[in-house]
Structures are given as C-alpha cells and as structure tokens.
C-alpha cells in the first residue's frame, strides 16, 4: 500500500539560476501529517537523482500545510544557458507529485 503525493497534495515549481524550488501543499490535515513525515529531502533527492546530485533542502510551513523544497543544480546549468526544453523546470512540480509514499490510512486525498 502506498499513496502518491498527487493524491494528497498540490505543487508549484519556481526557478532561480540553477536552483528549482517546489512547494508541496497538502489538501487536508491528514495529508499534511503524511507529507510532513514521509516526504523527506532524502526521498525527494532519490526521485530527482536522474536530474541533479542535489543538495535538497526542506522548509516547513505547518500553518499552511506546506513544504518548500529547494533543489540545487536541477536546471541544466541555469535557466539562461540550459539546453533543456523546459529550462525553468516549470514541469518539475508534476515530477514531485509522482513520488510514492509508504502506505497509510485511506481517506487522506482531496476532500
């Protein structure tokens, strides 16, 4: 049993230089408990390892049920010189949402 981040949270990606930041916001308190416990910087880095060696830092905003991940070296050398088709990494929010988290109780998805 596992649950996708997609099922319990939404995300947005932004860029600065060669660093991507991706916020992940849980739809519910139950979902927040899951991402807060399971969506660790190590797990995120493992999922992004084909794109970047990291590092990944995580910031917590519990009152908004949100995590902010700062992923360095993720944008192919930086927005202005990257050869990537998505140099801003705008679509990386969707990659974040495909992460599977270890199984937990049902009913933590969209209200």
């Amino acid at each position, binding site marked *: 049993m596992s649950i996708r981040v997609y099922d319990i949270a939404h995300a947005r990606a932004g860029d600065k230089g060669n660093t991507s930041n991706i*916020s992940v916001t849980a739809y519910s308190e139950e979902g927040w408990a899951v991402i807060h416990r399971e969506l660790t910087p190590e797990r995120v880095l493992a999922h992004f390892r084909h794109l970047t060696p990291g590092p990944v830092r995580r910031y917590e905003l519990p009152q908004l049920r949100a995590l902010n991940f700062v992923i360095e070296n993720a944008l192919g050398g930086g927005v202005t010189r990257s*050869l990537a088709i998505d140099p801003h990494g705008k679509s990386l929010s969707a990659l974040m949402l495909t992460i599977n988290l270890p199984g937990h109780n049902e009913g933590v998805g969209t209200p």
Partner: protein
Amino acid sequence: MARDKIRIGCGAGFSDDRIPPGVEIVERGDLDYLAMECLAERTIARETLDRAKDPSKGYTPVLLERMEAIMPPALRRGVKIVTNMGAANPMGAARVLREHAPDWNCPDYSCAVVQGDEVTDIMRAHPELPLMEDGAPLESLLPRMASANAYLGADVVARGFATGADLVITGRVADPALFLGPMLHAFGWSYDDYQKLANGTLAGHLLECSGQLTGGCFADPGKKEVEDLAGLGYPLADVWADGRVEVSKTPGSGGRLDVATCTEQLLYEMHDPSAYITPDCVLDVSGVTFRQLEKDRVALNGARGKPRTATYKVVVGYFDGYMGSGEMGFAGVNAVARANLGIEVVKERLRRRGMVYEEMRVDLIGMNSLHANDADWAPEPYEVRLRIAARTTDKKAAEAVGAEVRSLHMQGPTGAGGGVNFGARQILAVKSVLIPREWVSPEIVMERAA
C-alpha cells in the same frame, strides 16, 4: 494628502503577458494604481543590445502595443501606472509613449522616469567583486558583459509618484517594489517601518506574476478545477494605511483566488521562507496565514519584516556562446528505434564536419524531454519526436545542429516527418553580484512634451 485605503492592480506579470486581462482590470477593477512587471532576469540584456544599435530603443519591445491598450482607459479613470517596461532605456520609453499618446486619445499626463539602475561602469571599476553563484571574480565576465543593472527598491517608485506623476517608468526595480512603491507614496509610510514594508512586499510578491495568483498554473481537470480559465482575471490588492492587506481579482473575471492559489504563489521562486531578500526589507513569510473572506477574496496575515541589507543585487548579463536546435517526428512501428538512429546519424554527420560543442542534449519528446527518468518507465509511444540541442562558441556549429536534424527528412531513417530547424541563437546568460547601496544614485527625471 495621506489616504486611508488604496487599491493596486496587476496589469502584466511578464513581458509578453496577455493584454486583455490588463485592460479588463483597469476598466472593471476600480483601481487607484496599476503595476506592470515586464522584465525577466535576462531580457534587459537583450534590450541593452537594442539600445546600443539604436539609442532610441532599449525599452520592452511590447511597450507600445501594451500601452496603447492600457494607457487611455487608465488615464481616463485616474488610475496611476507604474511599470518597468523602461528596461534598458526608461527615458526612451517615456518619449516614445509621448509621441504616440495623441494618436491614442490619451488625456494629458505627467510622466516620471527612474534612472540609475544601470551600473556597467561600476562593474568595470570593480572586477574583484565575487559572483554570488560561484564566488569567482567578476573579472572573467567583463569582456563578455552585455548589461549590468541593480535591483532598485520601492523608495524610488514612491519618489516617482511624489512628483505628481500619473505614470512612473523604471528600468530594473525589484518586482514587489513596483507594488510597494505606490503604498509608500499614498500612505507616507516610513521607509523604516518594517512591519508595513513586509505587508506591502508580501502583497507585491503575490501579485507580481499576474494570473499565477488567480488560477493560472493551477488547473488539473477532475482534481483542481478553475472556473473559466480562458477568462482568467488579474489580481488586485486592497491596502489600508495601517498595513492591512486583502487580495482579490477583477470582478466578474474567470479564475479562482483562494487559500490554495495564494499558498502556491507565496512559495513561488522562494527559497528560505524566513529570509526573502528584497531591496526594501528582508521578508519573513514563515508565519503567513491566509483567510478566505468571501469568494475570490483573501486576507493576508503574519508577514514579518527584518531590516534591509546594506547592498543592492546586480544582475550581470553576458554572452555565453550560441545554442542551436532542431526536431523531427517519427511514428508507427519501431518509431523509437528510428528516432534513435536519426540521433546517431546527426551526431556522426556533425562530427565528420568537424563541429565541436561544449554540451549536447538529446530528447525524445513524448518519452523523456521534460523529466521522465528513462524511456523504460513508460510504454513505447505510437509516435515520438527527437530533439537535439547543443551549445558552442562557434555560431556555424550551432547553425549546423538544426540543419542536420531537418535534413533527416530526406537523408535519415524512413518515416520521418514534421522536421523543424530552430536555427541558432546567441545565449545571454546572467550572474549576480552584491554592491554597497551608496555606489548607486537613483534619480527621478521628469519627461516633458517637446
């Protein structure tokens, strides 16, 4: 005369942002001020080059098209405008607007220009400055430097409005400062009242990307619905003299503005939430909360402000070679293998021609072009599109990339179609340095009709 409350709308969030929602918020938003943010990190470098070729140019290329639509209704309604579309030539922008204003039936207006963000001479005088990205001295970039501009703060925008101007045109100003500036001016806030600076900066940060606060970058059918996304409206902020802020959007427009959209935009392009550095203050959003007051109206609370730093950030634009690219599609049985053969053929042809590249990137669009881990994590698609992009200091080598890809039409594997040669473009990259504030002397200059 100090006011009790003002309303500031966002009319554009990037240089090619959609114009109709900007007109709509002017006509239906009951605004006091309209701010338009149109300057990405590197666009000013391009515009500096334009100005070098033609001293009357160097402002944002879309300036006239946007202002023809926005200025007449704004001026008729008494909505004051601030924009960074001056780019590398704010006075040039002001002058060309004055030339065209009579054709647009604009009422008479007064225009203040902010100058002094351009600091290329200061960069040349200080080759020892360390780059923020890697600590290396600025010196190595100087021979290739195309532009250098300091991010000015809201104080200069407020000074612009203090002249009585209806229109304030700037070059490089920090994005949130375009919104904080009108607040400083209208309320006479002290530039050391960090609680109010924080509230205003937070409002500016939320509004500066236009539709990203109101349902843009958000919709996911069946999961996160956005009403009338096609008619997405731009955001506005109601700000009170005591620093209270509520955000909303153009009445009757499409989109949505709620705690979820505000939370996504709050963290957009933010690293440490307790230290978002702007020229005006160090904003701490780690305790921010949003409260939905009614449909499409949210109150902001919990922003904290720390004293501004002693430095301005300068973005240095520099030439970094050329990039060439091209694409070709393949479909049907064995499409992926044929695309891969096409890639090998292009690489080999470029090699035999003696072309040299710093870096080459190969994508199979539909399989791994954005961020898929590997082709093996998806079933093989019916059709796939190869893309090859490469960076080089040699313009001819850059041009050869797209040309070789496109020639796969006739000289590649079977069943190739839809080839495109995107040609070569010069790369303008950016890096940053910090400089003491006192090295920069921004000034306000009035533009007058000849």
